[in-house]
């Protein structure tokens, strides 16, 4: 209860700061307008106006909410001006990238755990691959993948894959190595083959490590998709909305797209988390 209350306090504080910021940043424009009309105005007089500008520097929360309502509920889902339409496009790329990334990550982790040569040679490069700002690669990768006649969604998913596989590799390697020597010895006394030990011991005991990694991977995958869409903007998507908003000075559009992306991130992470909870519960990890 206190937890909820304190979260609420912080959220309210953020909204208050947001309103104050909107008033401050948008006031300049109102002053300029008044000066042009040869009027002097006080701050209190222009305060209501700062909340209702057409193209504010920082739109007030209720303006963003209004824009969200307009672009989600009042527009048809199939319309190109609907935020849901663009969110769906982004979701497709994100989901595909997430599946690729999780699959690649798990395969690499299995290889790394079972093969010492692979552990020594591949693992350092997996880590190094993440210090390369892959988002910088995005524009070029998309050009290349387009030239190879790949569908736009696959090209975007590639970027997502690159961003998301790392978390899965690290978590999964940790998880596959988590059974202790005693448990591995027990498998040996059962005369279990390597495969049997893998399927019956290593894989199940890696799941508590896998799911938190998958959460990170889902969030990373979304970031990849959004940035990829900034380059491949003709297909639409939340990233394209961000880009268009910044070209045409439509700040409300940018903020609405940002909120859309945030909600999508929240839903994805929550969905992975829930799947994890249910799976782990049915496997008897939590009690």
């Amino acid at each position, binding site marked *: 209860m*206190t*937890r909820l*209350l*304190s*979260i*609420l*306090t*912080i*959220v309210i504080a953020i909204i208050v700061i947001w309103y104050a910021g909107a008033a401050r*940043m948008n006031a300049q424009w109102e002053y300029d307008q008044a000066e042009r009309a040869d009027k002097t105005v006080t701050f209190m007089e222009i305060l209501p106006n700062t909340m209702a500008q057409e193209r504010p*520097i920082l739109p007030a929360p209720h303006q963003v909410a209004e824009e969200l309502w307009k672009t989600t509920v009042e527009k048809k889902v199939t319309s190109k001006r609907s935020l849901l339409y663009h969110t769906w496009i982004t979701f497709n790329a994100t989901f595909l990238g997430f599946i690729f990334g999780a699959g690649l990550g798990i395969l690499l982790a299995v290889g790394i755990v079972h*093969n*010492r*040569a692979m*552990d*020594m*040679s*591949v*693992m*350092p*490069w997996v880590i*190094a691959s*993440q*210090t*390369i*700002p892959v*988002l*910088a*690669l995005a*524009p*070029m990768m998309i*050009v*290349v993948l387009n*030239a*190879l006649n790949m569908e736009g969604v696959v090209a975007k998913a590639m970027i997502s894959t690159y961003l998301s596989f790392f978390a899965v590799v690290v978590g999964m390697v940790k998880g596959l190595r988590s059974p202790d020597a005693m448990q591995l010895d027990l498998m040996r006394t059962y005369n279990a083959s390597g495969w049997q030990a893998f399927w019956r011991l290593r894989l199940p005991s890696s799941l508590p490590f896998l799911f938190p990694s998958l*959460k*990170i991977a889902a*969030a990373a995958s*979304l*970031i990849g998709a*959004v*940035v990829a869409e*900034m380059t491949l903007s003709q297909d639409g998507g*939340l*990233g394209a909305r*961000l*880009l268009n*908003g*910044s070209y045409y*000075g439509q*700040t409300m559009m*940018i*903020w609405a*797209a*940002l909120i859309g*992306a*945030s909600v999508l*991130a*929240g839903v994805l*992470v929550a969905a992975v988390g829930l799947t994890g909870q249910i799976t782990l519960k049915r496997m008897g990890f939590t009690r």
Partner: protein
Amino acid sequence: MTGTFGIAAIFAVWGIGWFINTRIAKARGKGLGLIAAIIFGLTLLLMWELAVIALEVSRVLLPPPSAIAARFATSTDILWADFLQTFKGVVMGYMLGCGAAFLTAIAIDRSDFLKAGLLPIGNLVAALPIVGIAPIMVMWYGFDWHSKAAVVIVMCFFPMLVNTVEGLQAADKMQKDLMRTYAASYWQSLLKLRLPAAGPFIFNGLKICSTLALIGAIVAEFFGTPIVGMGFRISTEVGRMNVDMVWAEITVAAIAGSAFYGLVALIERRATFWHPSQR
């Protein structure tokens, strides 16, 4: 004919590299891990080179590593200027963002109420695609490095905050009790016990932020820069089909990113030498 021959050569290179590495993996000794990693990297580069030649891949799509190296060598002055421009934003944003988060963490650490509220929100924000604020920041703070620093500040703030707050709780109850029996003041126990105990967490946050900072600055440059900067160069040279220049820029980014991360890791090793993970 060259195609089949080339593909055979690729497999041969792979086989040789793999053979050496399995040998190394069987031997045990210091520094062998590094050698294995280097051999693996060289194998990949060689295979890339051979594949481009054998399959006659257009240079516009994927230049061979040798072409990238040549381009790198001939245009070091441009690369250096771009690097400086981008790193101004990265370093300023990184220091301000991490510093602000650190101070905020210490400030809210005294209030359980704020901590309980801020942690879930911080965790949520850490999962959001914050790079999306890049166009807004460019709109607010103009094209120069200030807007890039602003993006970096926001990107670094929450991961650092969450890690520091968690770190400040890392000291044992026993240890805190000991400080109390010494009649240590709040500041004494903070400086002598809790901050050192938080070290591994703080450095974890710093390491995460070091990669985020570079990403943030480069992406922010896609939305507008003066005519210099790594993100600017990448997006314009892609448009001009100078893909080797883009790869040279990416090499710079990779080196800079690894060096930045390595520097933080090195400081971590010095500062938290007592922690089990460093031994």
